[in-house]
C-alpha cells in the first residue's frame, strides 16, 4: 500500500496509463486504465435487480446509453450490445427511458439467467382505447 507521501498531491487521480486523447478513440473496455481508475472497481454487488437487454425488440435509439449515469450500456458498431454488469448499479433508469413496446430493457432479479429472462419477455401491449 502507498504511504501518505506516495500520493499525487491534491488527491488527483489519473484514469489512463497513456495519452488521454488516444484513449478516447477506443472503446472503454480496450482502454489502458490505471489501477487507481474507478473503471477497475466493480459495483456489481450494489445491485439487487439487473437490466436485461433484448436485441430483438431494440430499435437502437440510444436513449438508455444517453441516460445511463455510469456509462454501463455497451454500444458497438452503432448498435446496442447489452449491459456492462461490472459497472451497472441496477438503478433502472435505462428501463424507464426505453420507448419501445414492449420495452427492450427490463429489470430481472440479479441471480436470474439472462437466457431465461429473454425467454420470458412480455408481449407487445395493446394500446388502450377510451
Amino acid at each position: 500500500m502507498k504511504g501518505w507521501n506516495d500520493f499525487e498531491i491534491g488527491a488527483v487521480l489519473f484514469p489512463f496509463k497513456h495519452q488521454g486523447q488516444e484513449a478516447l478513440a477506443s472503446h472503454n473496455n480496450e482502454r489502458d486504465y490505471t489501477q487507481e481508475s474507478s473503471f477497475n472497481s466493480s459495483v456489481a454487488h450494489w445491485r439487487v435487480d439487473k437490466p436485461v437487454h433484448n436485441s430483438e425488440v431494440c430499435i437502437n435509439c440510444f436513449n438508455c446509453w444517453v441516460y445511463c449515469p455510469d456509462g454501463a450500456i455497451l454500444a458497438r458498431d452503432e448498435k446496442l450490445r447489452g449491459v456492462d454488469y461490472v459497472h451497472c448499479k441496477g438503478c433502472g433508469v435505462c428501463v424507464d427511458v426505453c420507448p419501445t413496446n414492449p420495452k427492450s430493457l427490463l429489470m430481472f432479479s440479479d441471480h436470474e439467467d439472462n437466457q431465461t429472462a429473454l425467454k420470458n419477455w412480455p408481449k407487445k401491449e395493446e394500446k388502450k382505447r377510451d
Partner: protein
Amino acid sequence: MPNVMELQEVEVWDGNMAASHALRQAQIDVVAAYPITPSTPIVQNYGSFVSNGYIDGEFVLVESEHAAMSGCVGAAAAGGRVATATSSQGFALMIEVLYQASGMRLPIVLNLVNRALASPLNIHGDHSDMYLGRDAGWINLNTCNPQEAYDFNLMAFRIAEDMAVRIPTIVNQDGFLCSHTAQNVRPLSDEVAYNFIGDYQSKNPLLDFDKPATYGAQAEEDWHFEHKAQLHNTLMHSDIAIQKVFDEFFDLTARRYNIVETYDTKDAEVVIFALGTTVESARVAAKNVRELGIKAGVVTIRVFRPFPYVKLGEILKDFKAVAIMDKSLPAGAMGALFNEVAASLYQVQDSKHPVLSNYIYGLGERDLTQVDLVKIYQELDANAKAAKLTHPTQQFIGLRGPKLSFC
C-alpha cells in the same frame, strides 16, 4: 495584452485599493467574486480595472460566496491563476469549498477582510472570521496596514504557487481599520510586480486533455487520512518557502517581513502579542509606557497558518509576562490565539514559562484605546514583579456591565 497603469511612486490607497492593485498586477486568469462589506471595494475596483482593459482575464459574477469559491476551485483546477475576496458571513458561506480548495491543493489567493460574525449583525472588524477558517488547510498571512495588504498580496501568489507548496493562501487585513483607511503606499510598477510573481505554472490542469485527471474523488478510510496528512505535512513545512519569498521581496523593495516580528523586545520584560492593526497601536503604547519605567515590547506573527510554534516559543520564552490579545469570541474556552501561544511555549526547551494572560477585546470593532493598552502593560508589569498572575487569566476589555473575568 492588457494596458499598463502608470502609478506614482507613492499612492494614497486604502487597504482594499491596495489589494485590488496587487490582484491587477498579478494578471489573474479568473476572479469569481460576490461582494460583501468591508471587502466589497476589492472586487469593485478589480471590476473597473477589467472594464478599462487593465486585466486580460475573466471576472465572473456569481450568486453567492459559496459559488464564488466554487468558481475559483473550478478555474484553478482547470489550470489558471485565481483569486477572490470576502469577509465575515460570506467567508462562513465559503467554508465548505475552502476545504475542497486545500484538499485539491489549488493555489488560490483569498483576501479576507476581517469582520465580526452575526448574530447580532455587525459589519465592522474583528477576527472571528479568521479563526473560523484556521483549520481549513489554507496558509494564513496577517497584515497591519494598506502597504502590507499590497505587499502580502503579491507575495501570496508566490507562496501559494511555489511547486513545493501548492496550498491556497489567505491574506488577512482588518476590516475598516485597514481596508477603509487611506495611507501612503509605495507600489511596484506593473512590470516589476508581475516579474516578481512570475508566469503561472499549472500542475495537473483539467484542461490538459492528453493527461486527463480526476479531482476530489471519493477516498473513504482507504486513503483519506493519507491525503490529509500530506496536506498537513506540506503546510507545516511551508514556512521555509514563505521565508524565502519574504527574503526575495526584501531584496526587491527593501521592505523586510519576518514570520515572527518583534518591536523593542531586546531588553523587554513584558510583551503584548497581537494580530492585525492592534500591533501598531500596541507599539505606540509600548513606546509610551517605557517612559513609565515598564520594559515593554510587542510581538506579532505574519503567518497564522502554519502556526510558527518553534520560532514564536523561542522568542517568547525569556519574557516575564505576555498578554495574548484575542479579537474574537472564544465561546467557551481561552482565546484561540492564547491556546496556541501557550502550546508554543510548552514546545521549547529551557522555557522560563512567562506568566500568560488572555485579553478578549475589540469584538464588533469596539475601540481598543491607548488607555486600555497602557493598563494592560501595567498589569503585565505587576505580573512580572510578582512572578505570577495578579489578576484573572482571561479578561474582557471595554465591555459594559460588571467585569467579566475567567480562570
